[in-house]
């Protein structure tokens, strides 16, 4: 077999020509990605930091295109050029090279350098998204339900449905959570997404930069009508889609108008607390007895922890003087009376369902004791 061992094949004119061709093609590809209108493959961008994400996409797409042109190109070129021809005998051999350390060194180093570059770029943009956004924006809350979203605004009673209005060029802090299973809040125009996990509050921060009406899409499977939690699905079998909800970016003036209108419209809506019957003498509360009750009746769903630490319901440590408390429950600070009402009447709303005193087996005295205990937890 030694006689038909071929001489080593050196890179020749053909090789360098095709390499030049690939280089030109990759440059064209890179130029295309650097300049192409991104709207062809991405929805129109309506929020900062959406642009940076598009920049990252351009960079990755450009380098990916170049890489694929070279790998795929050489693959096809070698495959055609080095095919076994009829004139080669059946046992003709390829050139017997085992490796080439220079080559292997470089094709390990170059990707490494690329990875470093990509990491730097990604981390910069990650910083823009996760860290650099202003903390003190308009706080809006969105709660996922099967199968719709609801929205809460400070000083607006109850929940808003259908449209989430935001003022343009004002930072937004969006807290999302869920009342049942995991949903995911995605506004393609904002390039941002956060899963709505029951028992957990996820936050995304951004600044709307373009007036318009943008679809909200649920991207985490949440049951039968998951597909309908998507404003781009206008209708199903002729029926208008009940789950279609939008983000509406308004001019500041329009936003104010909408905000006040909604405030007035929801003024009479008490936050899921029906009018009370039977009065509770909170004065007679016994904190010690309350503590006993709490560990028996409440601790399955409520922690003695800051408000944000939910089990099912919120953490209840110091609710009567916790500044964070109104978050996600109610515009105003809670009073012992509110707590007593909730315990007596139960609660049904964005936080799921809390049974009423009857189901919990609480007498009015028990409620008084519990309130006393909560008040004692400063």
């Amino acid at each position, binding site marked *: *077999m030694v006689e038909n*061992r071929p001489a080593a*094949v050196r890179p020749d004119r053909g090789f360098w020509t095709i390499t030049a061709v690939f280089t030109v093609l990759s440059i064209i590809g890179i130029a295309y990605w650097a300049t192409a209108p991104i709207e*062809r*493959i991405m929805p129109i961008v309506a929020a900062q930091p959406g642009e940076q*994400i598009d920049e990252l*996409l351009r960079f*990755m797409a450009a380098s*990916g295109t170049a*890489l*694929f042109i070279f790998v*795929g190109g050489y*693959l096809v070129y*070698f*495959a055609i050029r*080095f*095919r*076994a021809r009829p004139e*080669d005998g059946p046992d*003709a*051999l*390829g*050139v*017997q*090279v*085992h490796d*080439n350390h220079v080559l292997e060194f470089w*094709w*390990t180093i170059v*990707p490494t350098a690329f*990875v470093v570059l990509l*990491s730097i770029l*990604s981390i910069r943009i*990650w910083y823009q*998204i996760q860290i650099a956004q202003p903390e003190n924006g308009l706080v809006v809350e969105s709660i996922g339900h099967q199968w719709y979203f609801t929205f809460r605004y400070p000083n607006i009673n109850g929940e808003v449905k259908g449209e989430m209005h935001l003022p343009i060029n004002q930072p937004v802090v969006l807290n999302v959570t869920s009342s049942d*299973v*995991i949903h995911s809040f*995605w506004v*393609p125009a904002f*390039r941002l*997404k*956060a*899963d709505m*996990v*029951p*028992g957990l509050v*996820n936050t995304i921060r951004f600044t709307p930069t373009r007036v318009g009406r943008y*679809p909200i899409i*649920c*991207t985490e*499977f949440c*049951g039968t009508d998951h*597909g309908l939690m*998507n404003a*781009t*699905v*206008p209708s199903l*079998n002729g029926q208008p889609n009940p789950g279609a909800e939008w983000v509406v970016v308004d001019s500041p003036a329009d936003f104010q108008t909408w905000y006040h209108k909604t405030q007035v419209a929801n003024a009479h809506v008490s936050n899921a607390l029906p009018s009370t019957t039977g009065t509770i003498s909170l004065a007679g509360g016994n904190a010690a007895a309350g503590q006993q009750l709490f560990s028996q009746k409440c601790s*399955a769903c409520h922690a003695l922890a800051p408000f944000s630490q939910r089990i099912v319901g919120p953490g209840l440590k110091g609710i009567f003087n916790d500044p964070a408390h109104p978050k996600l429950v109610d515009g105003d600070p809670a009073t012992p009376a509110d707590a007593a009402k909730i315990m007596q009447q139960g609660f049904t709303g964005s936080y*799921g369902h809390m049974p009423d005193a009857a189901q919990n087996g609480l007498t009015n005295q028990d409620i008084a004791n519990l309130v006393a205990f909560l008040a004692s937890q400063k």
Partner: protein
Amino acid sequence: MSATAVHAGGIAGHIHPEPQGFVRRYIFSLDHKIIGIQYLITGFVFMILAGLLAEVIRTQLLHANGGFVSPDVYDEVYSVHGSTMVWLVVIPLLTGAFGNIIMPVQIGARDVAFPWLNMISFWIFPVAGLMLFSSFLMGAPVAGWTEYPPMSLQAGPGTSMWAAAIFLVGVSSTLTGINFLVTIYQMRAPGMTFTRMPLFVWAQFATAPLLMIATTALAAALAALFIERQFGVPFYDPTKGGSPLMWQHMFWFYSHPAVYIMILPAFGMISEIIPTFARKPIFGYKMIAFSSMAIALAGFMVWAHHMFTSGLAPYLQLPFMIITFIIAIPTGVKIFSWTATLWGGKIHYTTAMLFAIGFVGLFTLGGITGIFLAAVPFDLHVHGTYFVVAHLHYVLVGGSLMGIFAGTYFYFPKMSGRLMNETLGKWNFWLFLIGFNGTFLPMHWLGMLGMPRRVPEYDPQFQFWNDFASISSFVMTFAILLFFINILWSIRNGKKSGPNPWGGRTLEWQVPSPPHYYNFKNIPTVFGLPYNFSQPLPYKGLEEELTDTPVTVGAH
């Protein structure tokens, strides 16, 4: 000499004559080759079933309003499709089937280390498969192959059945992993040092620990899910203090290594096929072997890149992103090495080679989109959209499945003694290539433009590309149909292949097709890498293999 002989025997303790009864020979066989073929057939059966489910999905998506099946049925269909393809098709085919049929012969062993364990871990697998499909009778799982709670806690009783079935598959995988690890470590023929092992063996050696360790972690997660569903013990239910995110951590701690379980053996087979048909040594043997181990190791450190939107602490996102980027380097090295292996070759275009080259191209695309997804900022946009669907099908269908096709065309003669039909094979390849890209390429921009995954209805403006994908998927299905027709036809009418139709140089090609019960009449001695095409074969003691001297092994 005696020591080597017994050593190479490995399973010498269990040496016994070949059983003659049909049951002990073909049903409850201890022979790794028969067990491997059992895996192959069972895996192909499940592949057909899951393929039909896939066509249900594509038919549903022909119209923006769906309407082919009800949303609930649709959810069940894609959930079972995903679970089947991952756990009952790709993993068993790549490890159980090809690992069993080829690996012991390639290392010059008479069988795997624990033949009984091998038989058991096979027989668990079809049972688990039937359990999974039986869940259709009681309301199959709906929350996709990932089954995130609390959704999977709400869903019908089938989800518990799903958990039990996947748990069983996990047990089977773990046993196989242990078996292969010991086999490769302990039972290589004398002289076959680690740096002389064929690359397919290296791939299995990198895969076995993943099978053994990662799968056990999944078993724990599944057990907890099952217990919570059946006995109400709170692990994942937030209303009882459990944590939904905990499932995601435990699940992905398995399922990210699992994607390497699903691709490394395919890498190994490609590394065998390309040099064989290019008639030249694999380029950079050591780098390819090493990169397999590097990928396997790093695979354990990146699971949370599936959870960038789940509410991970922002600072936790960075290490996972960067390690994921780093995995691209060894993978790139492999791809470059395969490309370079073609340089200066004398390439013979058999169907196996076509599939191998197609594998390299398509897997490169899948790898590139993988890097896209690893970048946190871009992932925040496309997570949970069809972009992810496109990426995972490029690596699992364009990668693993292409590898399985290549391997079948390549090793079919070794299993059956007959060649598969090349004409049909070429049709199979080209139709598959066209259909595949037509199906999954559009999903990239569908996802970026805003089409979420796991939806039975979608934005009407996407209807054109969805129809395009569906019609292409019918082409792909037809190509796979040709593949099975080819197998059935070739078993009876294929050309007789003889021991070594491809001029392969690894040990399995030096023995008859199919090899006899204990593979070797005498255990060979190895003194070199198999890939030196210009040198004589680096084996001693194979003189009798192709002669008709009687087989004495195991005779009493």
